[in-house]
């Protein structure tokens, strides 16, 4: 049972990382980016391909790939956020949802063409840690630590640095933020870049823990959305906690039932949560 709890915590850490990026994009630009999970899959594929040439550790690869994912985030911004900035908020959200779904579908086919149907796994053998009679895989513990550090850095960036404050100001009131000299275009662009980096990091970590299918991008995004909706759109701590909760739920359901049942439970929870708590227009 404790082993399942630990496994859930590791998975939850990676989900939290994915959700934090998604929450950032939604909070600041109102973009529900369905291609977020596909960026994670892209990072996993790139990491796997890079291992052929040099055996990078996941964290080294994440640092090296940061400029690339920043660029991808900027590019994505021009397709799924910038064209809709003049629409009313609900219309902009729906338009970005459709555009990002389009991008996700394009990427899924490209991934299958590039990588084939074979699941992407970048597992590297790491010594196992013995703690209080429990066997903890060293790689998972290290990745959980890295995920926690990345989320903490992100929270620090948002709270204590000027660009982070600009992003929060833009999320709260676009017009007032503009009056204070914040450039909405550049700030939104930076937020999208940061979200893409976080998706990349999550993808590399995920593939180091579990095999990832090239067509799993939309599935990953939906799970991340569940976390974001449960944890609260636009803030970063809520998704981190909700990510861990989803990790536990998946691990326990996987232990009790089958893989498909895990999906049924997770998506039923997502829909129930949406129906009961969020999305009510009057709220």
């Amino acid at each position, binding site marked *: 049972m404790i082993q399942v709890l630990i496994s859930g915590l590791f998975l939850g850490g990676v989900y939290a990382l994915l959700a934090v990026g998604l929450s950032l994009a939604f909070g600041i630009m109102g973009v*529900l980016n369905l291609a977020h999970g596909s960026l994670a899959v892209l990072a996993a594929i790139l990491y796997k391909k890079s291992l052929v040439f040099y055996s990078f550790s996941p964290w080294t690869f994440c640092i090296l790939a940061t400029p690339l994912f920043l660029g991808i985030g900027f590019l994505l911004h021009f*397709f799924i956020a910038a*064209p*809709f900035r*003049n*629409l009313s908020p*609900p*219309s902009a*959200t*729906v*338009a*970005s*949802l*459709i*555009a990002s*779904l*389009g*991008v*996700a*579908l*394009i*990427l*899924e*086919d*490209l991934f*299958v*063409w590039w990588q084939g149907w074979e699941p992407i796994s970048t597992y590297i053998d790491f010594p196992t840690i013995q703690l209080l009679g429990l066997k903890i895989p060293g790689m998972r513990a290290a990745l959980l630590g890295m995920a926690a550090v990345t989320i903490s850095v992100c929270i620090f960036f948002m709270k204590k640095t000027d660009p982070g404050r600009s992003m929060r100001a833009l999320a709260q009131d676009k017009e007032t933020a503009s009056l204070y000299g914040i450039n909405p275009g550049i700030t939104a662009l930076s937020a999208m870049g940061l979200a893409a980096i976080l998706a990349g990091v999550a993808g590399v970590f995920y593939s180091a823990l579990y095999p990832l299918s090239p067509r799993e991008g*939309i*599935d990953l995004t*939906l799970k991340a*959305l569940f976390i974001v*909706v449960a944890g609260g759109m636009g803030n970063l701590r809520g998704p981190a906690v909700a990510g861990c909760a989803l990790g536990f739920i998946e691990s326990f359901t996987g232990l009790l039932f*089958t893989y*498909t*049942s895990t*999906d*049924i439970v997770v*998506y*039923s929870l*997502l*829909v129930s949560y*949406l*129906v009961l708590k*969020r*999305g*009510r*227009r009057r709220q």
Partner: protein
Amino acid sequence: MILTALALSATAFSKGYAGIFTFSLVINGIMATSYDIPGRSLDFVSLGHAVFFGLGAYIFGIAVSKGFSFFPAFALSMLLSSAAAGVVILLTAGLSHGYYSLATLGILIIFQRLFETMEGISGGSAGIYIPEPISNFQCALLAAFLLLATAVGHAVFSCSRWGFFSMETKADEQAAEVIGIPTRKLKVLCLMTGAVPACMAGILYLARTSHVSPVSGFSLTLSITALLGSRIVPIKGVLGPVLGSLVITAAEEIIWTKFEGFNLAWFGLILLGAALYQGLNFRELKKE
């Protein structure tokens, strides 16, 4: 005229490649027109319209495999799938736009996985095979009739007071509530008017093809086809989705035959193009 021509061609070409093409054209027409009722009236973007299609197909398949003949199975599955659709709609009707899209996508995946899991009833991932319950000609005739009925339903809804109520609600929901429009009732009615033809399209699809699986019944591609069919031709009324489904079915045919392995990517490109067109179009309007 276009509708009548479509309906006539569906019955005239009930065999061979032309028969398959016109049948998918009519099914896409039904899906796009039924999608357009809540889609255009309330600006709801559903990513799970195929849920109703899949429910209709599966319930019909289960009924036929239990020994029911075509018409009792048709009536039973229409009733049961409409009831199930009603439950789904009652759950989601209160959601706002982005959340509604997410919830419908979530529900689509739940149903897909559920029917994959229930192997004893639904045949699991392989799906259900049934013997041909009616001839291809009868099937094409019923599909053509359903398309005409859906188009009439669309027109009647748009011209009725509920159609005007929906325009008000789309413009400003709070203001609509203030002037006494029952917005929740309107949404449920509007979504149900769109869901029932989709359930019936699922039944006819299974009757024609004899096979349905969780992936083909509860298909995201089918939901996207309906969405695109409804939005791609910017003409108001019934003509928009009918012409849209004509464009999409032709595009789908080319994509499936000429770009094997990149079907989703092409759909993605069309979706992206449609969304960008909407964004750019709005900018032009603002400039004017």
